[in-house]
């Protein structure tokens, strides 16, 4: 039977949301650390797909960047989250974080970035201690328009991680999430993945804005008891987009 046209027009217009996994694959990540990262990211993908299905405002596009001796894209182009499959990464080599920032900078330049989008989300997973001179390339990244607007989250892997560079990356120590064990890693990765929906289709804004930040923003606040239900509440006011962004800064 021929399908009868019911109403004209298309779907609600949406904007692309670029989500980047930036994964440290240096020698210090070898073994269980990279194994846990591979498992945790793979297991969060179905939840990202489901969140994207319920988000009318964004087209969620995912890219993966790895760095060790040098840096390279695993995905050559942004992949729609429903088509995205995690490719297991193998660790070995030095920690050329600066190279990763250079590739990110190139990717966040217009073009290839579109000039209309939602704030990109950059999730850096690392145990710190870069071996190259990353400062110049981090500055370049942060000076890009899209680099400035990006939501930058770091996940610190393992108890022996050095968070110095992760704090420099996020500009906010609260956005350096501690993953001291595999369960915590899953929680943090899940939480970071929800930042994608929080920047595009923010959930109901709870009125408890006076609560300690840890309770409404950082994942640890609600991970106690209840079997680690990750907080899906991101207080929209608390998503940092850089100190230099003022209320009138709309472009």
């Amino acid at each position, binding site marked *: 039977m021929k399908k009868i046209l*019911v*109403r004209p027009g298309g779907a609600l217009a949406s904007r692309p949301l670029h989500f980047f996994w930036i994964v440290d694959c240096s020698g210090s990540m070898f073994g269980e650390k990279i194994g846990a990262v591979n498992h945790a990211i793979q297991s969060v993908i179905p939840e990202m797909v489901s969140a994207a299905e319920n988000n*009318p405002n964004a087209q969620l596009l995912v890219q993966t960047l790895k760095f060790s001796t040098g840096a390279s894209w695993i995905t050559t182009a942004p992949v729609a989250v429903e088509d995205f499959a995690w490719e297991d990464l193998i660790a070995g080599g030095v920690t050329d974080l600066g190279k990763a920032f250079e590739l990110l900078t190139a990717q966040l330049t217009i073009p290839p970035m579109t000039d209309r989008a939602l704030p990109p989300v950059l999730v850096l997973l690392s145990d710190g201690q870069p071996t190259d001179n990353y400062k110049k390339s981090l500055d370049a990244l942060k000076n890009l328009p899209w680099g400035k607007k990006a939501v930058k989250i770091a996940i610190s892997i393992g108890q022996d991680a050095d968070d110095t560079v992760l704090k420099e990356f996020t500009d906010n120590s609260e956005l350096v999430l501690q993953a001291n064990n595999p369960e915590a890693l899953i929680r943090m990765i899940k939480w970071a993945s929800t930042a994608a929906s929080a920047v595009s289709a923010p959930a*109901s804004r*709870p*009125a408890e804005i006076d609560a300690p930040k840890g309770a409404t923003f950082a994942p640890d606040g609600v991970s106690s008891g209840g079997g680690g239900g990750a*907080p899906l509440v991101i207080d929209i006011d608390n998503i940092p*987009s850089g100190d230099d962004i003022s*209320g009138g800064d709309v472009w």
Partner: protein
Amino acid sequence: MDGLLKSGEFLKSESGNDYLVMDFLGAGGQGEVYSVTKGTSKYALKWYFKHMATKEQKEIIENLVKEGAPDDTFLWPQDMIVQSSDSFGYIMPLRPSEYKSIVDIMKRRAEPTFDALSKAAYNLTLGYRKLHVMGYSYRDISFGNLFINPKTGDVLICDNDNVAANLSPTTVYGTPRFMAPEIVVGKDKPSRNTDLFSLAVLLFYMFMLNHPLEGALEAKIKCMDIPAMSQLYGTKPLFIFDENDKSNFPLKGYQDNALTYWELYPQKLKDLFKRSFTIGLREPARRVTENEWLDAFANLMTGIVKCGSCGVEVFFDEDKASAGEAHTCWHCKKVVSIPLILHIGKNNVLLNAGARLFSHDLNKDYDMETVVGSLIQNPNNPNLWGIRNESNENWTYIKADGTQIPVSPGRSATIAKDSKINFGQLVGTFEKLG
């Protein structure tokens, strides 16, 4: 992924019922939702995250359970489970699977007809009106909090756990894009009047598949982040069809739905949207009320005609007809002939085959369920049509010469030139327009 509750766990409610936790259904900003059973009946259980399980929240739910649901449109808290002061949840009816979210409609995964869409708009407005009548405000009208049966236009309103007496302390500020400007700029808190703004946004989304404030000014913004959203929806909101300032007019290639749909609706509906997002942006007390919306939707529901050439639904526009303009089909572009109209008060009922009159048409009681009249062919003379009295009241048929004939329930009044029907409160006249 571990949740707050475990499948197979038994929970005892405040009213002494035992519920068995079955499946995890989903998570939101405040907590997680599970399916549970009590005997052979299935329910939904919302369980709060610890940091959201506040004393205020608990009191709100206790009150809602005590007061009971306004009607079965609401997936209302009906029982409470309390494990400790910061660990609790509530039982509500489970949503049947034929109900779809507004996101499904926005993404075109659910495709209601214009008739079903008009009914859904009517039903959900009626639902929020009930809450307001009872002295409540809802506080978080948005995509995620209601469901529509795209086949029938029936609606279910969920997430009622923020519902509380209007102007009482709030547990929620609302959802971005739906929050009234005065909340976005931090000047006010959710109230009945901010509900009216959110309702207008929701209705606009449903009919237009576009946000009422996202026009050229939105297209110009590169990065849609918090400052941008604060400006668009808070500090500098401008309706996309504001006639006094066209700088936010929808842009072709970016907001095509807005341009397409605006042309399809009757002027009276467009006027309500205009008021909602011009005067209503600045003056909360002058927003379009539920009754005004309901009257408009009731008219939409009885004002649809199918294009004689291609069969799509076209809305009758009284203003257009009065101005002598023809109705053209949005799909095949041919002229659509408008059937005879029964004009009752402010309502126009198009006398299509199978047309029915609802209680609201005759009694202004907002009951669009109870059928009180129908279009019927005279069994003895197929050339004659009449309006059959399906109500329990007597009507009076007034012939062109002034003769009055009673029309008791079950009888029909013949449709004839210059004849009228006195329905009691209102008189119906037949008009050929357009």
